[in-house]
């Protein structure tokens, strides 16, 4: 074909030849076809423009100064003449040094090497050499190995590092989160050891119940996680627990959590749609994921709903550890839950026990009754809120007493309501108290105040937490020294038939600072410990 023949005869292209004529070189000629100010060597300037100059910015133009004799162009302004004119002289400059270059037989000796012109033959080699951010010194040897996989990488074991996205079979483990607006974006990867908790809004409707993927459980446990990056070892995501949330907000934990529930339409509602996912990833200390579990909260939407709010969370646990979240280190931090526990029978040490269950994973916290919207004591079951250090709280509900209620069951129900299913016996003194240190736990003192009467029902529980500042003056740590739980009871008077009474039931928590005023302690003055050796006065003593 004629094209290839033409390229075969194409001459080798070179760059422009270096300019070495001193008379034609002009360093200050920067503007093309325009006169540069004070540039005496500029060929674009006319005599009239030269007369306006004040000095010559480049007085001498020479070649390489190491040559024995070379031409030099000297530019100067003759200010005596009227108008001033530029004078150019071409002189022979002689280098007096003995080691000046008399002659060279090497053409490229005195100028920089012109760069190689890319042609179709050397383009790949030039690209490898100069194509990246740094120029490689050995293009030929590297060019051969770059395509083959590096054998040293095969033996290197991959592992997850902090912040690296967790890889699944197809892409990454997704944690939908709001991006610009509050709408969910499914492109947020979960990072290894990066605890994230996000909430976002997703548009749904009852008609599209079965077709939206992101509200179905399968979407979140479908792809298996790779145990280490770029490996074939997979870890399936298991369903740890499923909680069903009804339309009015009450959640119930399901017993059998192995069954995958798909969104479906039932009685005009779309049920089994995912309202929240909480991933729990277990990892080893070599950066390998061993287990993955997901806890779901499924809910239902009715016909008027246009969007739902989904919440996602991911947490990481190291294998063979049971982390207990600290409430301070060592002193309590305001806003973190007060830790509490029990001393099991026959066991000298208190152990922190799961106090509030359900779908969250909180350990060993002191809890009080949580007020609900309905304010009816007998309906508010199992809604407790943890006591946060430093925050005085009060909560309560209203109890409707009818004539038919008996004393003893009512007392028991109210006690359960006020104190919860398992009221702890000990409270941690410091935020990081370990279960083994008995002395770091403060026993809860129970007091009762009651009136005279036959039937006493507890109506109020007041927890007073006395704390003190402990430690250094500049960084005092909060320490709980005393916890007193006072139960107040009133007499239940028998009501006539058909009449009702409403009494308020309250729970309150008060934090009192009982720190003694600080006394700064100063260090002792340094003493000079100069003792003479015992045989100092040897000949005499």
């Amino acid at each position, binding site marked *: 074909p004629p094209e290839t023949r033409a390229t075969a005869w194409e001459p080798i292209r070179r760059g422009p030849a270096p300019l070495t004529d001193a008379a034609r070189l002009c360093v200050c000629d920067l503007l093309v076809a325009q006169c540069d100010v004070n540039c005496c060597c500029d060929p674009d300037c006319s005599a009239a423009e030269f007369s306006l100059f004040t000095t010559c910015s480049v007085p001498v133009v020479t070649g390489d100064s190491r040559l*024995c004799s070379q031409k030099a162009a000297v530019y100067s302004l003759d200010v005596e003449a009227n108008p001033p004119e530029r004078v150019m002289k071409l002189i022979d400059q002689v280098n007096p*040094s*003995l*080691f*000046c*270059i*008399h*002659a*060279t*037989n*090497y053409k*490229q*000796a005195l100028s920089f090497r012109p760069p190689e012109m890319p042609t179709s033959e050397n383009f790949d080699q030039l690209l490898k050499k100069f194509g990246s951010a740094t120029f490689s010194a050995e293009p030929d040897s590297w060019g051969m190995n770059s395509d083959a996989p590096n054998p040293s990488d095969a033996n290197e074991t991959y592992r997850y590092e902090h912040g690296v996205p967790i890889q699944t079979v197809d892409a990454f483990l997704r944690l939908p989160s709001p991006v610009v607006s509050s709408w969910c974006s499914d492109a947020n990867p979960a990072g290894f050891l990066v605890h994230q908790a996000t909430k976002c809004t997703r548009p749904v409707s009852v008609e599209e119940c079965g077709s939206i993927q992101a509200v179905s459980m399968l979407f979140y446990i479908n792809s298996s996680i790779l145990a280490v990056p770029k490996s074939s070892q997979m870890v399936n995501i298991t369903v740890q627990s499923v909680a069903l949330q009804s339309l009015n907000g009450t959640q119930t934990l399901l017993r059998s959590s192995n069954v995958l529930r798909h969104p479906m339409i039932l009685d005009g509602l779309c049920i089994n749609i995912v309202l929240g996912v909480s991933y729990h990833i277990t990892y080893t200390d070599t950066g390998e994921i061993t287990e993955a579990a997901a806890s779901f909260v499924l809910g239902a939407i009715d016909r008027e709903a246009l969007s739902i709010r989904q919440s996602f969370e991911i947490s990481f646990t190291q294998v063979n550890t049971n982390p207990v979240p600290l409430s301070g280190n060592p002193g309590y931090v305001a806003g973190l839950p007060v830790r509490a526990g029990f001393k099991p029978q026959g066991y000298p040490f208190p152990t922190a026990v799961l106090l509030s269950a359900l779908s969250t994973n909180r350990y060993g916290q002191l809890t009080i009754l949580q007020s609900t919207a309905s304010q009816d004591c007998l309906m508010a079951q199992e809604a407790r809120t943890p006591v946060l250090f430093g925050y005085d709280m009060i909560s309560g509900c209203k109890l409707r007493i009818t004539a038919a209620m008996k004393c003893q069951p009512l007392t028991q129900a109210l006690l359960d309501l006020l104190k919860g299913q398992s009221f702890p016996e000990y409270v941690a003194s410091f935020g990081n108290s370990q279960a083994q240190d008995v002395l770091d736990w403060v026993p809860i003192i129970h007091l009762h105040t009651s009136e005279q009467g036959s039937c006493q029902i507890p109506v109020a529980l007041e927890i007073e937490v006395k704390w003190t500042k402990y430690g250094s003056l500049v960084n005092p740590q909060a320490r709980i020294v005393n916890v007193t739980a006072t139960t107040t009871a009133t007499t239940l008077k028998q009501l006539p038939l058909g009449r009702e009474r409403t009494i308020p039931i309250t729970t309150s928590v008060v934090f009192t600072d009982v720190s003694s005023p600080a006394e700064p302690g100063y260090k002792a003055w340094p003493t000079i410990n100069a003792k003479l050796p015992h045989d100092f006065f040897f000949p005499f003593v």
Partner: protein
Amino acid sequence: TTSQLSSVPLQILFYVNGFYYIFYFLATLAMIIYKSQVFSYPDFFLAPDLALLCIMAILEALRLYLGSKGNLTEEEAPLGLSLALTVGSVILSVYFLTWQTYVLRADVVINALLLFTYGLEAVLQVLAIAAFV
């Protein structure tokens, strides 16, 4: 009269040439090293220059020895051989004067001096051979 035929000026010249050549060899070597550090001196050009300098040194030693021996023993053969080697040395000196990669002014000076010495020696050798024959 049995006058000696050995040429005294030639012998003096050989003697001085020996010392001068040692100086020449060291100076040229030092300047080649200097050039390789200061200028761009690729290996492709450095190797021939160094090789020719070494060959010139060997040639020079041989030439001075043969010439001196021939002159002192009044034999034409070694002196003739020395004359032939002088031609070779002259060519090498001209190389270092004009065809070297970098010719410095100092190179010009010492090579010119060496060429002058060779010229003088060649004339005296021819005269000595003519006298011996």
